[in-house]
């Protein structure tokens, strides 16, 4: 494995990403924010709880929130993997398509989302990721009783989205990240779906995600 995660973390975290004179953070073809985890958690969990009051809407809440995670992966991960910063810092380490998974995971480890680690990667078939200190699970545990179901919606969508970008689409070829390409990749019958198998919000010691192709 050619990926030097510490080198990537040091390089990205030292970019000094912060608002410009207009109070905006244009980077990687996106507008970024350094946002408050408490905000995301409150609006996400409040909506999920409200929909969970109606049994037939439970899945709708999860689906909406995980779809937001898919969009995050597509635009944020995709934008980063097409960026000049990626080319400068990460691309020199890349030898295989699988290296792109490890390289992107290293970049995620500068976002404040908690510590992501690839536990298992079967090329084109399966990705297993663990997350320590997930902001979603940590926020849930702080504010609510132990959950009966996993709560890391963004990360679940993100893990699946990373595999979709690489093995359903092909981000290594630098495609335009258009709505049409999103639909092509994330509505494909062979797309990846994410499952949170372990979650701190339900009492597990860490959060663990599996992305596999739709059966």
């Amino acid at each position, binding site marked *: 494995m050619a990926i030097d995660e510490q080198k990537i973390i040091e390089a990205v975290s030292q970019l000094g990403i*912060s608002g410009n004179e207009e109070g905006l953070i244009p980077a990687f073809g*996106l*507008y970024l*924010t*350094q946002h*408050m985890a408490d905000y995301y958690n409150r609006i996400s969990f409040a*909506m999920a709880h409200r929909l969970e009051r109606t049994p037939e809407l439970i899945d709708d809440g999860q689906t909406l929130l995980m779809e937001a995670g898919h969009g995050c992966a597509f635009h944020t991960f995709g934008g980063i993997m097409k960026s000049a910063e990626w080319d400068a810092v990460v691309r020199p380490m890349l030898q295989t398509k699988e290296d792109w998974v490890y390289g992107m995971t290293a970049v995620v480890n500068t976002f*404040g989302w908690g510590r992501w680690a690839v536990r298992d990667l079967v090329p084109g078939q399966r990705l297993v990721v663990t997350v320590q200190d997930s902001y979603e699970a940590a926020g849930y545990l702080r504010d609510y009783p132990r959950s009966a179901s996993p709560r890391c919606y963004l990360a679940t969508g993100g893990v699946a989205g990373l595999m979709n970008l690489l093995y359903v689409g092909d981000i290594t070829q630098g495609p335009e990240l258009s709505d049409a390409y999103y639909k092509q990749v994330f509505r494909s019958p062979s797309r990846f779906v994410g499952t949170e198998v372990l979650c701190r919000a339900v009492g597990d010691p860490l959060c663990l995600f599996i992305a596999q192709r739709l059966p």
Partner: protein
Amino acid sequence: MSAERPDFDAGRNLLLLGERRIIFHCHHYNLFLQRSIEDGLGPEEATRLQVAAAMESARPLLTKLYAKEPELALVDKLLLAQRLFGSLGFGQADCTDLTAHGGQIRLLTSHYAIGWLAKWGTASRPVCHFPVGFWMGALCAAAELPPERLQGRELSCHAQGDARCLLEIEVL
């Protein structure tokens, strides 16, 4: 490290500011999530939730930052909030009209309005719910007001075609 910049714990991938976790997200996620909350709850309840959540998030964070500089006057505390708002990427705010009795905040740029326009075009309703709640939290912490006394709204929004976003905070 400036008072308005998060500290990075590289070993655990935690960004902390005012003892609160800070995370990177882009306009696609922020606006998609906002729209998802509206889909799930309806626009009126979603607006109330997002304003309340922003106030709940910003108030303790800014209380911690203000406490580091207890000599600051109200106007200086609000200017600190203005710098923080910009450094975190939410936009360029002008809060010079804001007092302990309320007032207006002009957003010369707004992440949420610009992001909405870029992603979906002209909005049918104001979209800067987070900024409304942020500034309610900032004033609440700076003037040490009970949060129940504050009400906020967006009077005009760039995402709807207005030149600037204009927020109003009323102190009851």
